[in-house]
């Protein structure tokens, strides 16, 4: 049994516990200029848990701290899927990390509206001028810039040249009809045409989004974003086109339980040569190698086919990147470090390592050595238009509803009409 003194000690320790939780707050906000000798510490939340970006950031932090001995950067790398909940927990308390990864779009906009993010328009004007507009667009709202991109890329079909050849396909398809033919040929040859991570949901939304871009055109997404109405016939048609593909049963066995980068997931299926193609972003080759064997020279890339009679240009690209935003209370050193990492001589190192694509207008092209990165980079540079991932473009609720409904369309539990109805309902409810 506890003595009375023990009881008092317990009560005191409880009070202390309470006190501890409040004393940790407010660090960093009062710190001085980056150049000063005053000690500055700031937190850097990022997604670089894998190579080569892990080393890239570790090196930049080391260099920056060596040049600014008064600055300490806390490098907090968080795995992609746990990053969003972690960030959401922090923003709920009305705070944002000093420097943090963002995909821009709807989520960043919510942070901006809540006053959590620093407006970089004038403070970073020198850097902003040197960044390509396509890379920058996801972080700009009403003419102001709230984040800087460190990566930009696009989604397209990665295909296994050997398997295509075996099925007698000489040229990658350029139209949707041709694409469906390709799928049929692969299937007839006994090859799984497409690898898909049904459990992860977001890879499925690429199909619907690209089809909607080709059928309805980029302008339709902008309109739907403001009117919150996705019920137009073109959006339904996109779902019907996707249904045509799903009806061919093109995906690997058990795809609805498959994740993206797990040992048996989409990337591994593709990387181990068990499927003909996958629709994925610029990171696909490295993840294929990471989760599977990798295809080496057998890996090819083609853009999403045009849809006959569609309003969208076949050169329009769908994708996104990654960037960094600065918390409103962050010390100036945070922005200074961000600018430092975006200098051509620094950022090109990340490009050279194959971790990201160029975001700067000048000084990075030579760094692109990887043939796959080069293909994506050139295709993107030649793109006639650009659409950000829909689960980033719109508020999180709408983005997740798109992912969810499209997954159900692919799973066979929702019709194309029900998909657009669900998305519209969520979008309308969000905007009320």
């Amino acid at each position, binding site marked *: 049994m506890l003595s*009375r003194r023990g009881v008092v000690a317990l009560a005191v320790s*409880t009070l202390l516990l309470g006190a501890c939780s409040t004393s940790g707050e407010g660090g960093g906000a009062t710190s001085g200029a980056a150049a000063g000798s005053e000690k500055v510490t700031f937190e850097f939340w990022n997604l670089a848990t894998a190579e080569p970006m892990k080393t890239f950031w570790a090196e930049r932090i080391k260099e920056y701290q060596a040049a600014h001995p008064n600055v300490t950067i806390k490098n907090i790398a968080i795995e992609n899927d746990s990053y969003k909940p972690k960030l959401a927990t922090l923003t709920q308390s009305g705070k944002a990390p000093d420097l943090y990864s963002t995909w821009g779009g709807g989520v960043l906009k*919510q942070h901006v509206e809540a006053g959590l993010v620093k407006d970089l328009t004038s403070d970073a004007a020198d850097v902003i001028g040197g960044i390509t507009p396509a890379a920058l667009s996801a972080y700009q709202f009403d003419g102001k810039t709230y984040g800087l991109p460190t990566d930009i890329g696009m989604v397209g079909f990665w295909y296994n040249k050997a398997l295509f050849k075996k099925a007698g396909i000489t040229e990658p398809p350029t139209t949707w009809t041709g694409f469906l033919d390709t799928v049929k040929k692969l299937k007839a040859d006994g090859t799984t045409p497409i690898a898909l991570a049904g459990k992860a949901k977001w890879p499925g939304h690429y199909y619907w989004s690209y089809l909607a871009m080709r059928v309805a055109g980029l302008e339709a997404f902008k309109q739907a974003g403001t009117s919150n109405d996705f019920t137009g016939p073109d959006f339904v048609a996109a779902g019907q086109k996707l249904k045509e593909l799903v009806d061919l049963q093109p995906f690997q066995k058990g795809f609805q339980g498959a*994740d993206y980068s797990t040992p048996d997931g989409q990337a*591994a299926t593709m990387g181990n040569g068990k499927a003909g193609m996958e629709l994925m972003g610029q990171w696909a080759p490295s993840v294929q190698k990471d989760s599977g064997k990798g295809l080496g020279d057998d890996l090819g890339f083609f853009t999403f086919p045009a849809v006959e009679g569609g309003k969208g240009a076949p050169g329009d690209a769908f994708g996104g990147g990654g960037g960094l935003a600065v918390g409103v209370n962050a010390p100036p050193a945070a922005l200074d470090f961000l600018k430092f990492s975006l200098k051509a001589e620094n950022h090109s190192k990340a490009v050279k390592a194959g971790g990201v694509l160029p975001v700067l207008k000048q000084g990075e092209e030579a760094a692109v050595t990887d043939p796959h990165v080069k293909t994506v980079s050139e295709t993107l540079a030649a793109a006639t238009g650009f659409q950000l991932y829909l689960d980033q473009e719109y508020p999180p*609720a709408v983005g997740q509803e798109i992912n969810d409904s499209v997954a159900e369309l692919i799973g066979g539990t929702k019709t194309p009409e029900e998909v657009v109805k669900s998305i519209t309902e969520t979008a309308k409810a969000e905007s009320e």
Partner: protein
Amino acid sequence: MKTMTGPDARPALSPEGPAPARRRGRGSRRGRGWVTAILFVLPALVLFALLVLAPILVAGYTSLYKWNGIGPPSNFVGLDNFTRLFASDIFVGDLRNGGILIVLGLLVQLPLSLGLAVMLNQRIRGRAFYRLLFFAPYMLSEAIIGVLFSLILSPEAGLANRMLVSWGLEPWTWLSEPDTVMFSLFLVITWKYFGFHMILYLAGLQGIPRELSEAARIDGAGSWNVFRHVTLPLLGPTIRVSVFLSIIGTIQLFDLVWILTGGGPSHASETMAVSMFEYGFKRSQIGYSSAISVVMFLISLVFALGYQRFVLRRDLEGASTTMGDRR
């Protein structure tokens, strides 16, 4: 009791004693007793209020708002979140999935645990080893088991399908089809929890005096009759507690489902807690997900109180829920 505490506890010379002094002494002692009791309870009470009561109240408050979790909630919508909730196919599906798992748990998992417990209560070789073996899965966390089984049940490279194929059978869909996912999920839940319930039953069985079953046997009862009329009734309190834990655990099921299926495919294995996480953290609809948490809390509360009041009454004689009608 009263002679054990207090500085003025002296041996009573006679049963009558000096009555007035005694009453006064008892009164002040009781006052001091309260202070001590409050001091003892205070740390726990503070933690309880801070970590349990406050979040419940906050969730109740935010469930009345349409709130994306950033900045203070300002858009008051009344009970709108709750009406949307009960109109949602996903949430109704959550309730159905929870119901299925509860029924399966009661009909399959608990009888299985009971059977094993009865077997392992007999004198058999390696009894301690079997007990340890069956209890081992319970010692692993749900997260670890989730990862473990997502590898085992993986469609192509998974152990389960490889074994099926090596026996000349067709690989099965396990977690990847809406109509098989609940079965697979239940299999994993059972694998984790049957050992826990088995240990509960074993403890209960050891509390049953051997003389009773011996007496029944002498009276000519066979094994089944001994089990049915001696063991089972005396195991009643344990079974009632085990049922209670099983149901409450299923209502709150999250970790396993989140890791194994994420609620899919097409929401076929989604539970209330998974929806809550999905809406709260992925869709930033904190108000709506608070409403889910409130409903979850109310279901658990009503069930827990009702169960204690009507089922556990005999076992909990004197507890707060039955105090009113003590006979």
